[in-house]
């Protein structure tokens, strides 16, 4: 008797679930991203929540490390098999969507994605030929982030000017030893810190933000490179050569033993990644402090690179583009999603999510200080515009090899400057 009842009940539930799946199982979308563990964990939770709230849509996660991600995405693009929703670096737009036809136009989904949520200036950055190529994730800017330990030990204050930086480098070396440096920039940082100085001095960017060509003169570029060399020789930055010997010019700072041991005083970090910098420090986040942005007196720009780093795009081949749009909207504007993701995907660009995070104090204090610094610089008009092409992999390759050669003493700034300009213009003209 009892058995029969259970059996009937089971059959019933089975039938019900069968019918619901038959009727509802209409959309399965693929979502691809790269990022660290925290990002993966929180994103998977958001996916679960989304699936609960939208029965019938399943989201298949495809995540990987950065290197593999780009290689695979490009191959998929070639075959037209890219995921329905993908995380894309804004700097890839010139490659994937030169004329605004690489991704689905978000304007098509205006009923599903609330574009009003996003600041106009941010949307402009992701628009190519009038077509919105993706939904932005918050913008990030570079700033000076310090591990306070060596600074306290050497009793030095954080530098406010470049001269103070050189002075700090000298004192730190004298008081603590040859292994101690005020800043570990990674190679990208070396390029950006010295560029920041050059822009403060000449108020001109390396690549013209309005058209794809080099806007600095040969003398200005040479000066930029000379300053970089000076930063290295005066022990203000861990040199590219030193880093290479320690296991990689591009290896993240947090994986370097000297950072773990507190010998390196700081990093040039994006404000969105501040929290990850404490991962290998024994003192955790408490050990980090945001320093003043180092400036030349009377500079008209700070020269920090601040831009929308990441966007979510929809494949133009997607058969489930509406489900994809729904999902993006949930991810970028839903309050619940904001609470789960926190700052692990960078700071949100949408108004709703931003308010949730700030009102509910979901952003760690140091993160807030960093973001505020960039915002203040922006309000004072000190944040310059950068060309999208500046972060193009080919331009980066060129800059990297130039800086590497200078660091290794293979070439001089005077020799390298005209070559860099010529090559960069050649690359830019082809893009």
């Amino acid at each position: 008797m009892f058995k029969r009842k259970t059996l009937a009940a089971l059959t019933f539930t089975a039938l019900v679930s069968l019918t619901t799946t038959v009727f509802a199982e209409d959309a399965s979308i693929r979502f691809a991203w790269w990022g660290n563990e925290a990002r993966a964990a929180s994103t998977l939770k958001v996916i679960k929540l989304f699936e609960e709230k939208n029965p019938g849509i399943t989201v298949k996660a495809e995540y990987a490390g950065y290197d593999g991600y780009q290689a695979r995405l490009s191959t998929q693009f070639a075959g037209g098999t890219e995921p329905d929703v993908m995380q894309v670096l804004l700097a890839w737009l010139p490659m994937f969507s030169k004329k605004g036809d690489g991704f689905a136009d978000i304007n098509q989904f205006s009923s599903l994605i609330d574009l009003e949520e996003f600041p106009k200036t941010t949307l402009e950055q992701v628009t190519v030929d009038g077509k919105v190529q993706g939904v932005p994730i918050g913008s990030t800017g570079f700033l000076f982030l310090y591990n306070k330990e060596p600074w306290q030990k050497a009793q030095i204050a954080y530098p406010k000017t470049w001269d103070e930086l050189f002075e700090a480098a000298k004192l730190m070396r004298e008081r603590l030893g040859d292994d101690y440096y005020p800043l570990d920039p990674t190679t990208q940082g070396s390029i950006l810190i010295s560029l920041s100085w050059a822009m403060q001095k000449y108020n001109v960017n390396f690549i013209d933000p309005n058209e794809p060509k080099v806007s600095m003169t040969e003398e200005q570029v040479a000066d930029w490179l000379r300053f970089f060399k000076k930063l290295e020789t005066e022990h203000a930055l861990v040199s590219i050569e030193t880093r290479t010997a320690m296991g990689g010019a591009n290896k993240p700072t947090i994986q370097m033993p000297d950072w773990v041991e507190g010998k390196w005083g700081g990093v040039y970090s994006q404000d969105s990644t501040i929290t990850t910098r404490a991962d290998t420090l024994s003192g955790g986040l408490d050990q980090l402090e945001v320093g003043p942005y180092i400036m030349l007196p009377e500079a008209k720009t700070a020269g920090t690179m601040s831009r929308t780093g990441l966007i979510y795009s929809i494949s133009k081949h997607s058969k489930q583009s509406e489900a994809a749009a729904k999902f993006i909207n949930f991810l970028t504007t839903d309050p619940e999603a904001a609470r789960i993701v926190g700052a692990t995907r960078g700071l949100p660009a949408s108004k709703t999510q931003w308010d949730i995070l700030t009102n509910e104090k979901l952003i760690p204090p140091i993160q807030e200080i960093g973001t505020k610094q960039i915002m203040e610089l922006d309000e004072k008009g000190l944040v310059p515009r950068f060309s999208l092409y500046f972060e193009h992999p080919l331009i980066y390759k060129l800059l990297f090899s130039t800086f590497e050669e200078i660091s290794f003493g293979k070439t001089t700034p005077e020799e390298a400057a005209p070559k860099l300009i010529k090559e960069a213009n050649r690359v830019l003209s082809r893009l």
Partner: protein
Amino acid sequence: MYESKRLGYLFVLPFILGILAFNLFPFAASFALSFTDYPLIGSPTYIGLENYEKMVFDDDLFWKSMTVTVSFALIVVPARLAVALFIAQVLNFKLRGINFFRAAYYLPTILGGSIAISVMWKFLFQQKGLVNIILDTVGIDPIPWLASERYAVWTIVALNTWQFGAAMVIFLAALQGVPKSLYEAAEIDGASFWQQFRNVTLPIITPVIFFNMIMQIVHCFQEFNAPYMITEGGPLYSTYFMAIYIYEEAFKYFNMGYASALSWVLFFLIVSIAGGLFWSSKYWVFYSGEKERAR
């Protein structure tokens, strides 16, 4: 039976189909692509010989990469073969624990391709790594292995030589296959150890040397994992092997056309070296099967 042509064709049929579908067709496609500008996203445009012209006349990195690749092969192939043959020779003796040593030496070959090993290798050659500490104890100044244009490639060479096991096992098998009677005869003639090796061992194992040599050369020209993981092609492109250059052009910078042209040049280089070896094998490689038949 062996005269049955139909059976011969039947058995080789899967290969004919496979090679057409999975190799020759894509191969031809990439040959065609090498005459185009193909940004991967978008369609290819025919540009004639431009890729090849650019490579030869206007691409320092191509020449750099070529030099690096060829000199790497010139070092690694002999090094690996010499170590493998030497150890095989040492092992070819009535030894207790021979199985243990053989397995132990083979182990790195099994593990070498994995990512974990590359990570570890990087640790060994760091500024404060194991290698420098050992150098220090014998009174040699530490060498910035990974940051040195001159020495970085040696870390890759070392990793490759470390994996001599495959060649060694094959050598050892060959050495053990040399009939004892030949050595006894040589001994009666009063031949020294070296003379025995030179006049008895070497000629008999020539097919195995040939086989190992071809395999090592092919491997060397395709070396990718180690330089990609350990030195990232650097510093100053000193470990920027052709395989890395091609990979980056294709999947990082999206120049499929140029990458195809580069691969064709690499292919041509490997083919000519291997072709030269095959041609020369007539003069120094000696198959016992032929000998038996001749008898």
